[in-house]
């Protein structure tokens, strides 16, 4: 207020300063990702040099090696586990969300609480019995076990999220459809699905993110046949010597689907992570 003539200039200066500060912070946070990408394009001697190599001619060698080696089965297992469990979440979750949003059952709030409380049940709660069950049913090292577990992990989130999208559909639409004699199936397939298609897409992406990155169950319930992408990375912890460039290439490939999905669904990410509480 002291000098009105100064305000314009001061805002410009502060804008530049804050922009620089902001970009510095963003650079620090993004740097490990960038470094991962860079290392993946190096040769092994370049990646394991001291001091680290900053300028180099990029090579696709590591990516080719990872992709032609034993990585693809892990990647495919991850894809199967994530896509199948996400599909199950939608099949089970959409009707449930409907029952909690459009024609709410009694004690909707309690049911919602129940669902979400299972999301935050620590894996310690059910780990041992699930493991014994999987062992007895010969589901250890079977991708089906992971599909069922990831469905369990994501279903509460799916129900909450889909419900939050369903609540946005104006009630008149359903009334009109019912007057026209539409049944439950018609209502779901003709009204609900098309209207919340973006919501279904967002829910799927969030489910894919969580199941793709999941490690605890993957490492304990699989060993070789059904092992997923994060398990492939475990092999780099020790015993493989200085394979940093290959490690970086594998890490890049393993992270790529979720990174892309998250960037595409950026606007919906926050809603998904808070189960629809924040839009």
């Amino acid at each position, binding site marked *: 207020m002291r000098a009105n003539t100064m305000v314009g200039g001061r805002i410009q200066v502060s804008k530049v300063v804050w922009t620089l500060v902001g970009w510095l912070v963003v650079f620090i946070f993004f740097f490990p990702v960038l470094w*991962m990408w860079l290392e993946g394009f190096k040769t092994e001697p370049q990646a394991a040099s001291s001091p680290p190599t900053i300028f180099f001619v990029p090579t696709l060698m590591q990516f080719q090696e990872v992709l032609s080696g034993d990585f693809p089965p892990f990647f495919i297992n991850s894809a199967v586990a994530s896509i199948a469990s996400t599909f199950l979440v939608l099949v089970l979750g959409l009707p449930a969300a409907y029952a909690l949003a459009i024609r709410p059952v009694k004690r909707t709030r309690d049911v919602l609480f129940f669902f979400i409380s299972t999301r935050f049940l620590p894996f310690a709660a059910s780990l041992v019995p699930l493991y014994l069950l999987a062992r007895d049913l010969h589901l250890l090292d079977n991708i089906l076990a992971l599909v069922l577990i990831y469905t369990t992990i994501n279903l*509460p989130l799916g129900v909450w999220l889909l419900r939050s999208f369903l609540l946005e559909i104006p009630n008149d639409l359903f009334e009109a459809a019912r007057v026209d004699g539409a049944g439950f199936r018609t209502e779901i397939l003709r009204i609900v699905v098309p209207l919340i298609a973006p919501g279904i897409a967002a829910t799927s992406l969030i489910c894919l993110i969580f199941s793709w990155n999941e490690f605890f169950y993957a490492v304990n319930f699989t060993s070789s046949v059904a092992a997923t992408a994060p398990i492939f990375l475990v092999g780099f912890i020790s015993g493989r010597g200085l394979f940093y460039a290959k490690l*970086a290439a594998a890490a890049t490939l393993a992270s790529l689907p979720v990174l892309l999905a998250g960037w595409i669904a950026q606007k919906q990410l926050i809603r998904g992570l808070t189960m629809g509480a924040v839009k």
Partner: protein
Amino acid sequence: MISVAGSGGARETTVASVARRDAWLRRLPLLPAFVYVVLVTQIPFALTIYYSFFSWNLLKPGSFRFSGLDNYTMLLTDETIRTAVLNTVVLTLSVIAISVVLGLAIASLLNSEVFGRGLMRTLMIAPFLIMPTAGALIWKDTLLNPIFGLLPNLLTPFGLGRVDWVSKYPMATVVTVEVWRWTPFMMLIILAGLQSQNPEILEAARVDGANAIQSFRRITLPLVRPFIELGALLGSLFVVQTFDSIYMLTYGGPGQDTTNLPFLLYLVAFQGFSIGQASAIGVVAVILTTVVATFALRTMFSIFQVEARR
């Protein structure tokens, strides 16, 4: 008389049965999901409680026997478990506190008039999306490795070179990697809160002579407080479960220095195969988590109500 009463009764039953039918029709779509969740979470949890009263090692056939509260007395007396609980608390509190503060600062930056906000936001969320096992390995091997890592090489001129961060400061390393991962999460939630604020109110406060700090403390902070709480609570429910980065960075070591409850559970259940003990840890973990989760849910519902009122 009787016939009248009878017909009246019949009408009532039809009305009641229609109502009951309607109630069941409403519940029907809910049932598959409900039954599935009960089957896969509640029944196993009941079994966990049951097993926690038994001494049972999978590697010793025939070792299954009732042991009463032995597993729980062990939890209370065993040093290992106390250390794990303490590590869990230290890890969770420090990760949440630091990432909330950083997240708030960065969200405020991204909410102000800086150039390239969209791109900054996009890049900022990358650490949260990167596969945690991949992120942890990248930190450990290419950034922190004392010989080939970037950081020790950068710090050499300052006399800090060749420090083996992971084994010398194991907990700080795990906290750093987790803060790197959770700050974007906090930032996203807090940014959503900041963006829901009406800029005219801030403008009015400025006209009334409030400086930046005053209007932040008096106007912005109260508004984003529920968002900060939500982020902190949801975040702590996830961070309490930290397993990936500990497995990759330190494997719970050196010694027990970074063994938290989930990692101890892993060791007891899958390295020791002590089913009874692992189950007792499970029950304790559920009790501890329920306390945090109750607060989280309450916050979530209050935000829902705020949104609904709008």
